[in-house]
Each structure stands twice: as structure tokens, then as C-alpha cells.
């Protein structure tokens, strides 16, 4: 029961996080590609509640930033005029969920610009880029994991169900894939594909590459389940009644693999998001101007950025809750699995 509740909690938290990213257009104050060339590398603005005269405001406000006298890149707050944060203002056009045209945002400023995570070299809002980048990275992770599981399911089912030379061939191949260090494998497959491509093509390229890399482990797990499932009595009975291979697999055997696939999915998705991040960080993935979690961080490869503009690192911390959510979900799924196992064993003892 406790495990069940933890599972629901993690699931809810993950859904909320993903909801924010899915509705990035609404939660982000600006378009991710919108440039404010006059304000490159602006530090994050601070939200205030108490102004210079110690008056408490009900609504948070910010001061816009101005260059400190006599410096070229040091900013200070212009405390003359507080800008109240507007909720649900009308701003840049975006498409909610990818199709609903919309102009309302969650928050923004009336006649100044709000940069809660600072800006990058082109004066683009880092918060907006983080949210929109999440769409790219998370979808890459989800699609990649789906692709891997599909591949693993097909290969594992063939190997486990038909056995014989197909089984040994596929399992040797999977050993080979598992022997290769996976980041190297990712690099290797990426190395043998074109380097300069359009963002959309690059995205699908990456999803495919990441998807191909991980098929071996799910395939072996599926094979194990299929091996034990095909000897079950009800499967034998169905075969005795003349069920075809396709029917048996579809109807009786593959449904048995669902829990293995689910657990694998929860483990694979964050791994694949990370893989996309790594590739994009190194310039092998989704290229600019499309934001992704990887290329948001890639400006940190320049020493000058590292020294002077520490807030470019903030997006890295924003990703941690996602990984925490997936880890929590995976461990509570495993706990639930263990509880089920124990329960059924206890029942077995009783009868």
C-alpha cells in the first residue's frame, strides 16, 4: 500500500514537470529564438517583494538592469523604477500543444523585459530556452526509448519464441552490442552519419541513433519472459487448439512482457535524455537555433563564459528534478514488483 502511494506520488510529480515542459509556450515569457541584442549575457534578475522604501508589495517585482558606471559587462539594478510582474499578460505568439494559436503567457512584464535566468550571447531569454529545450530533449528521450523497446520486443520475441539458430545469432549479436561501451557506441554510430543537417533531420537522426544503441538489454529481458511464457499451460493449450504463431505471440505471450517493458522504459528514458544532451553538448546533436538541454550548456565550453557568466550553468540544475522523478518512479516500480513477488510467494505457501 505504501509502495502504491509512493508510486502515485512520483507519477504525479513527473506528470506536473512534463506538463510544464509540454506547455512551454505558456510558461515561457518569450519566444526561445527572440533576440534582445542590446542585452547579451544579462545576469538573472531577482524577484523582490520589498522595495527601496521598505514598502511591502503583494505582487513580486523586478528592477531592470543597467551597466555599472565605467564597466563593460557588470550590471547593477536600476532601483529607480520597480516593474511589477504581470500574470497572464498578452505576449509573443506561440502554439499551445503545437497547434492552438495563443498569445497569453503565465507571467511577463508590461514595458520592460524579464530575465529570471539571465540571457545568452544573443540576448535570448534562458528560461524560455530551457523550457522549449525540454520539449526537444524529453521527446528525444521518449521516442528513443520507444524505438529501443520496440526493437527489443521484436528481437527478443523472435529469439525467445522461435529459438534455434535465430536465438543464438541474435543473442551473440546482443552480447556484442553490450560489450561495446555505450557512449562510444553512440559516438561511433553518430560518426558514420552526416554531420551538418537541418535541426529536424538531426533530431530524428539522434533519436534513431540513440534508439539503436540500447536494444540489447531489453531484447534479452523480453527473450527471458517469452521463453518462460511459451511453456505455460494455457499457451500450450491454445496451441493445441490450433492457434497460429502470430496469434499466440500477440494474444498470450507478448502481454506478459508488459511489466518488464514498463520498468525498462522508466530506466531508459532519462538515460536517453542524457544521451541527447551529451550529443548536443558536444555539437553532434540538435544544432542552434533550436534549443535543447544539451546545446543550452554548450556555451560553457568557452572559457570566457565559464569565468564571467556563471548563470549559463543554471539550466543544468533545472534538469535535476526530472532525473530525480524518473529515478524515484523506477525504484518504486521495482519495490512494487518485489512486493507482488513476495505476496504471490506467500499465497503459494498458504495453499
Amino acid at each position, binding site marked *: 500500500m505504501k509502495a502504491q502511494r509512493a508510486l502515485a506520488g512520483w507519477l504525479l510529480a513527473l506528470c506536473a514537470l512534463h506538463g510544464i515542459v509540454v506547455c512551454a509556450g505558456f510558461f515561457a515569457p518569450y519566444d526561445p529564438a527572440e533576440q534582445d541584442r542590446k542585452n547579451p549575457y544579462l545576469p538573472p534578475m531577482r524577484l523582490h517583494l520589498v522595495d527601496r522604501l521598505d514598502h511591502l508589495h503583494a505582487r513580486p517585482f523586478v528592477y531592470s538592469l543597467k551597466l555599472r558606471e565605467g564597466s563593460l559587462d557588470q550590471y547593477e539594478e536600476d532601483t529607480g523604477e520597480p516593474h511589477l510582474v504581470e500574470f497572464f499578460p498578452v505576449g509573443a505568439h506561440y502554439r499551445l500543444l503545437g497547434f492552438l494559436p495563443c498569445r497569453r503567457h503565465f507571467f511577463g512584464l508590461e514595458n520592460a523585459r524579464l530575465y529570471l535566468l539571465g540571457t545568452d550571447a544573443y540576448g535570448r531569454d534562458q528560461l524560455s530556452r530551457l523550457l522549449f529545450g525540454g520539449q526537444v530533449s524529453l521527446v528525444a528521450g521518449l521516442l528513443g526509448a520507444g524505438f529501443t523497446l520496440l526493437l527489443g520486443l521484436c528481437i527478443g520475441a523472435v529469439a525467445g519464441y522461435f529459438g534455434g539458430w535465430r536465438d543464438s545469432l541474435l543473442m*551473440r549479436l546482443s*552480447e*556484442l552490442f553490450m*560489450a*561495446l*561501451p555505450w*557512449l*562510444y*557506441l553512440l*559516438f*561511433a*554510430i*553518430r*560518426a*558514420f*552519419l*552526416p*554531420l551538418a543537417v537541418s535541426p529536424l533531420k538531426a533530431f530524428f537522426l539522434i533519436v534513431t541513433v540513440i534508439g539503436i544503441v540500447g536494444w540489447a538489454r531489453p531484447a534479452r529481458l523480453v527473450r527471458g519472459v517469452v521463453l518462460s511464457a511459451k511453456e505455460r499451460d494455457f499457451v500450450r493449450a491454445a496451441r493445441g487448439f490450433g492457434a497460429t504463431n502470430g496469434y499466440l505471440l500477440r494474444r498470450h505471450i507478448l502481454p506478459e512482457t508488459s511489466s518488464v517493458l514498463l520498468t525498462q522504459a522508466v530506466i531508459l528514458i532519462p538515460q536517453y535524455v*542524457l544521451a541527447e*544532451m*551529451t550529443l548536443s*553538448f*558536444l*555539437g*553532434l546533436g540538435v544544432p542552434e537555433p533550436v534549443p535543447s538541454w*544539451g546545446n543550452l*550548456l554548450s556555451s*560553457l*565550453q568557452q*572559457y570566457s563564459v*565559464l*569565468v564571467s557568466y*556563471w548563470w549559463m*550553468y543554471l539550466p*543544468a*540544475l533545472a*534538469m*535535476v528534478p526530472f*532525473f*530525480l522523478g524518473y*529515478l524515484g518512479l523506477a525504484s518504486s516500480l521495482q519495490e512494487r514488483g518485489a512486493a507482488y513477488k513476495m505476496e504471490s510467494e506467500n499465497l503459494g505457501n498458504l495453499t
Partner: protein
Amino acid sequence: MRYLLRRLGHASLLLAGVSALTFLFTAMVPGTYFDEMRMNPQISPETITALRAQYGFDRPLPLRYVSWLSSLLHGEMGFSFAYNSPVAPLLLVRARNTLLLTITSTLLAWAIALPLGIWGAERKGRLPDRLLSWGTAIFLVIPDLALALGLLVLSVRSGWFPTGGMASVDFEGLSPFNKLCDLALHMILPVTALVLSSLPLLIRHVRAAVADVLSAPFLLAASGHGIPKRTLLYRYALPAAANPLISLFGFSVGVLLSGSLLIEVVMSWPGLGPLLLEAILARDLYVVIGGILFSTFFLVGGNLFADMLLYWADPRIRTESHAR
């Protein structure tokens, strides 16, 4: 002995498979190193054709594979176009740097993880154990990339440690002792990143393995006989818990060459990782193949090493393989 031979045969088959597979991938490459030369108006097409012929790119794939194999036997592993030298010496220098980094961090990580894991398992379910598992969870969910970059940002802002490279500019002029200090100072950041990224999993595995054994019936019986807790833990529980840990150690040894790729690139440590990345971007094929094969060799070797250790440590495996 027969066990060893069988495992060796298996491993070499695997390596042959990997090399063939990577070579097969090269057949599908759109574009080679020479494509970039074609952009250069100073290099005539004839020169490029001649170069292609010199490096054997005009020959069919199986022939290329065979000639690469023979160069492997000569200890060259093909030829790097970008560095204009055989691949093996290039790889060896870089692999030495990588190993310097990874061996240090692996030893350190194990030295920290073993006592902490055992400590947590001993106090299973109590406060220290809870703290430990929360601590490992936090480090587990921080991605390597974020961890390494965070360390870099911290050290740059505080100025405590040198960032990037493995030696200062005036390295050659230093005395041997100062050289060593300089190297150690440069190693601190990447080693910290590597240790922190591998530590949580290690601690969790050690804790799980020891806790598993500690709740076993035979230990309950032993403690019922009045054997003191210390003796119980070190004399009986640890040897029984060693099996999964030995496998894990083999894996640690296996990823010595490949596990630090990302952190090397982020911290610009001149190891195999940056070399491989450059080679990929420059389409320097044989360096890519060599790098992958090199690290796979280590991974397979690490597994083999773990199997040997297990064979030595666990009498059950010995009798099983003799019975066959």
C-alpha cells in the same frame, strides 16, 4: 585452465566481431577525410585521387579490412590522416593519460564506497543508512555533464584549482617533485568529477550485497551461537558478499578507458575522449575504429579479469566448471 582458454576464445571472437562491425559501419559513411580537401582550391583532384589510392580507399571493403588487420598485427592499427602517423602510438599516449586519471579515481571511489556501503548495511533502516541512501540518490540524479560543468564553474569562480589540460605552461622547467605536484593539482577536478559520478552506484551495490548476506539464515544462526558482531561481519558476511562486488570491480576495470570520455572532454584532459571526438568531427576513420576497439578490448578484458577473480574466489564456480 580449460575455463580460461574457453573464456579467452570467447573474448577474441567478440573483439573480431566488434572490429568487423565497426568496419562495416565505415562502408556506410557519407564522406571521408578527403572531402574537405576537395574544397581547397590549392589541392588538385589528381592529388586527392592519389592520396585515396595511397591510403587504399579505392579498394573494396573486404580488402581494406584485411590490410587493416595486417597493420594491426604490425602494431599500427591503420593510419591517421589528420596526424599523419600510425594510429597505435597516438592512442597509446592518450590511453596513458586516460588511465592515469581513471585508475586513480577508480581506486579512490572503491576505497570510499566499500567502508561507506558496509557501514550503511550494518545500520540498515536506521538514520545513517537513510542519510546515506538519500545522499547517493542526490548524486545519482545529477548527470555527469552537470556535475563536471558545476565543478568547473565552482573552481573557476574560486580559483582554487587549475582548469583544463594536465600540466601548467611552465611544466617543462619544473623540478621532478614540482612536476608531480602540478600534475596532481591538475588531476583534482577530473578525479573529483569521476569519483562523484561513480560513487553513488558503487555504494548502493556494496550496501545491497552486504545487507543481503547479513539477513541470511546462516548469519542469524551464527549470531545465535554468540559470535561477536565484528567477527560476524568481517569473517563471515564479507566473503559471502564478495561475489557481486567482484563482478562489479571487473566492470570498473573494464570501463577504465571508456568511462571518462565525457568528463575528459568537458575538463579538456588530453585523454582518449577528446581524441575520439576530434577524429569523429574530422572523419579520421582509423582513429575512430582504433579508439573504439581499444576501449572494447579493455571492457572485454575487464570482464575476463572479473571472471578469473570469481573463479579464484568462489569454490562453487570452480566445481561447476570442472563438472562440465
